[in-house]
C-alpha cells in the first residue's frame, strides 16, 4: 500500500504542470521537416476567444473542431478556411474541462472531458447521441480531488479520460487517463469489452502512466501515448502487446493519417511551466511509419507564432497539413509541411 501511495504521489507530481519533466528523445540525426504556419488561420468572431486549446480535429469536409478551456469549456466548429461556423454542445452537462476532440469516419464528433469524466458523441448535426462514463454526482457537494489510492477501475466509470479512437468495426477505444491508467475497449454500442492497464500506474509493458492519447490504424492496431512513461505502446485489436516506441521523448498525443499509406505522428511537447532548459530538449513533433521508423521531425518550443507552447493535440487527416492545438498559447496553428525538403541538421 505504501508503495502504491508513493507511485500515486509521483503521478500527481508529473501531472502538475510545474513539476512536469522534460524528456529528451533518444532518436538522433532525425531529418528536420521544414514547415510554415498559416497566418491568421482560425478567424474568430469578435468577442469569441479560445482558451487553452486542448483538442482539434477535422471532419471529412475539412471542417475544424476545437475543444477549448475558456471560462467554460466550449466546442467550436470552423470551416476548412478557418471561418467560424458554430458552437456545439453549448452548456451541456458534460462540458467542464476539455481534453480531446476527435471526428470518426462518419463525421460524428467525440468530445473527451476530464472534468466530468465523460466521452460525448455528437452526430454531425451537433446533437448528443451517446455518452460513455458517468459524471460525478453533484449532490456530493464540493469535493476535493479524489485522494489516493484509486478505487479499482470500473467498466463504465472513467477517471479523467484523455482521448478516444475507433477501429474499422466501430469499436471504441478510450485512454483513461489521469486517475485510471488504462485503455478500455467498448463495442460500437458502448458495451464494455476489455481493458489493458488498471487504476494503478506502472512502467512495465502493458502498464501505463498517464495514457494521454490514442489512435487506431486501418488494421485495428492501437497506439497509445504513454506520456509519463516516455513512450508509445502499440497493441493489436484485442489489446495484446505489439511494440513499444521509446525513442520519441514524452508521447503527449498521437495521430494517424488515413489512406493506403498511413503515417504516425507524436509530439514530445514541451512541459507546462517552461522550466529552464526544457525548450532545448522538447517541443518537436515526430513523423513516423506505423512500424516505428522515424521519418522526420518538426517544430520547436517557443511562445512565438510558428513555435509550439505545449502541443496537446494534432489533426493529420492530410499528413502534410498538420493542425496543432497548444495549451499554453491558447491557439490553433495549421502547419504546411515540406517533407521533400527534409534535412538532417548538423546541430541536432
Amino acid at each position, binding site marked *: 500500500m505504501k508503495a502504491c501511495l508513493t507511485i500515486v*504521489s509521483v503521478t*500527481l*507530481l508529473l*501531472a*502538475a*504542470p*510545474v*513539476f512536469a519533466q522534460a524528456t529528451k528523445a533518444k532518436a538522433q540525426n532525425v531529418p528536420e521537416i521544414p514547415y510554415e504556419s498559416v497566418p491568421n488561420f482560425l478567424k474568430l468572431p*469578435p*468577442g*469569441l*476567444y*479560445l*482558451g*487553452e486549446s486542448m483538442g482539434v480535429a477535422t471532419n471529412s469536409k475539412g471542417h475544424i473542431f476545437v475543444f*477549448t*478551456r*475558456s*471560462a*467554460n469549456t*466550449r466546442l467550436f466548429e470552423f470551416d476548412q478556411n478557418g471561418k467560424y461556423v458554430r458552437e456545439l454542445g453549448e452548456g451541456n452537462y458534460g462540458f*467542464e*474541462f476539455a481534453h480531446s476532440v476527435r471526428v470518426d469516419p462518419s463525421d460524428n464528433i467525440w468530445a473527451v472531458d*476530464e*472534468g*466530468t*469524466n465523460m466521452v460525448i458523441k455528437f452526430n454531425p448535426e451537433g446533437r448528443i447521441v451517446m455518452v460513455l462514463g458517468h*459524471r*460525478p*454526482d*453533484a449532490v*456530493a*457537494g*464540493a*469535493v*476535493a*480531488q*479524489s*485522494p*489516493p489510492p484509486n478505487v479499482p477501475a470500473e467498466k463504465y466509470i472513467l*477517471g*479523467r479520460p484523455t482521448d478516444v479512437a475507433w477501429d474499422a468495426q466501430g469499436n471504441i477505444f478510450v485512454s483513461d487517463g489521469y*486517475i485510471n491508467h488504462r485503455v478500455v475497449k467498448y463495442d460500437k454500442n458502448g458495451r464494455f469489452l476489455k481493458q489493458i492497464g488498471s487504476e494503478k500506474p506502472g512502467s512495465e509493458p502493458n502498464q501505463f502512466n498517464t495514457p494521454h492519447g490514442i489512435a487506431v490504424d486501418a488494421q485495428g492496431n492501437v497506439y497509445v501515448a504513454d506520456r509519463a512513461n516516455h513512450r508509445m505502446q502499440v497493441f493489436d485489436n484485442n489489446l495484446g502487446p505489439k511494440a513499444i516506441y521509446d525513442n520519441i521523448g514524452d508521447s503527449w498525443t498521437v495521430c494517424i493519417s488515413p489512406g493506403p499509406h498511413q503515417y504516425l505522428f507524436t509530439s514530445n511537447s514541451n512541459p*507546462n*511551466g*517552461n*522550466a*529552464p532548459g526544457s*525548450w532545448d530538449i522538447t517541443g518537436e513533433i515526430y513523423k513516423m511509419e506505423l512500424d516505428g521508423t522515424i521519418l522526420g521531425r518538426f517544430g520547436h518550443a*517557443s*511562445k*512565438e507564432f510558428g513555435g509550439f*507552447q505545449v502541443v496537446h493535440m494534432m489533426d493529420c487527416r492530410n499528413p502534410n497539413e498538420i493542425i496543432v492545438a497548444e*495549451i*499554453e*498559447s*491558447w*491557439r490553433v496553428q495549421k502547419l504546411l509541411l515540406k517533407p521533400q525538403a527534409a534535412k538532417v541538421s548538423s546541430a541536432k
Partner: protein
Amino acid sequence: MRHKLLFATALISGISAIAQTVPEMPFDSADTLKFPANIHLGEAAGVATNSKGDVFVYTRTGHPTISIGTARPFAHGGSRLLQFDKTGKFVREIGQDSYGFLVAQQVRIDPQDNIWVVDQMSSMVIKFDPNGQIQLLLGRKSESERLPTAAPGRGAGAAEGPPGGRGGRGGLPGAGAPQDVFQRPTDVAWDAAGNIYVADGFGNSRIAKFDKTGKFVKSWGSRGSENGQFNIAHGIVVDAQGNVYVADSGNKRIQVFDRDGTFKTQFLNVGSPAAICITPGAHQYLYSSNSNPPEDIDANGEIYKMELDGRIVGKFGKAGKLPKEFGSVNAIDCRSENDLYVGELGNWRVQKLTLHPK
C-alpha cells in the same frame, strides 16, 4: 565608501523629513466613464489608457465560481476587461469568457498600444493586441483549485497534491521557480527593448524578466526586507533608461534596480506604495499611492508625485468615499502628467483627476 554611505543615509533621512512638509497639490475629480445599463463596475483593480486616450478597466465583477460534480474543483470567471473612449463612452469588452480572468489585478498598455492584463488568481499575464486578440501568455492558470477537505466518507482530510502551476519549490522563500510560473502576480512593465518585467507578487516575492518573445531571462528577489527583497511587490514601472521601480508595499518603500536586477536605491518616504505609475516624455515623474487598506478609510490614501530620484514634488488626496477621496487605489494611469485615472478597489469606481500645479 563610508562617505558614500553617510551621504546616502543623509539623503534618505532628508527625504523622510521633507515628506512631512510635502506641498498639497490642488486637483479636481470627474466621473467620466459611462457604463451600459447591464454592466456594473466592481472593484476597479486596473485602469490604463492607450495612445488615443481610450481607457481600459480591468475589474472584478463577480467572484470566480467553483463547479461541483467534477473530477476536481474548477474555477470559472470573475473579472472583465472593458474599453471606453476618451470621452468615457463604452466601446467594447475584451476577452469575454476568458480562461484567465478570475481576479483582476492590473491592466497596462505598452507603447504599441497592446493591452496587458495581470490576473492575480489565474496567475497569468495576458497580452492582447490593439484589436483585442491574444498575442502572448505568461504563466499558467492552475488547472483546479484546492478545497480544504474532502467530503465525508471519501477519505476526508487527505491532502491534495501541490496545486498545479505554482512556483516556489526550493530556493529562498518567495524566490519562485526560474520560469513563467507565477504566484499571485501584481503588475507588468517593459523596457525600451520590449523586455517584460512581471511583479510576482503576493505569493512569490520576486521580479521575473522575459525577453519580448516571452522567453524567461531571469528573476530576482525573495521574501524579506533587505535590499533586493520584497514584502509584496505590488507594482512595477520602468523608466526610459531601463531602471526598474518596484512598489514594495509591505516594506513601505519603492526599490529601484537596473535592468538586470541590481539594486540601486530605495525611496522610503511615500508610505506603503500600492499603485505606481511613470509618465512618458522627456521629463519623467513617478506617481505612487499610499493606499488605505480596504477596511479603514481613516488612514492614508494620498498619492505622491515624485522625481525619478525620489524627491517628492507634491501629494494629493486622502482616503474616503467622496469624489476626490480614494478607496484603496490599486491603479494609476499617468500618460498625461496632469490628467490621471485612478482605479479604486474600495469604491468600485474610476476617477479622472485633473491636477492643478501651481
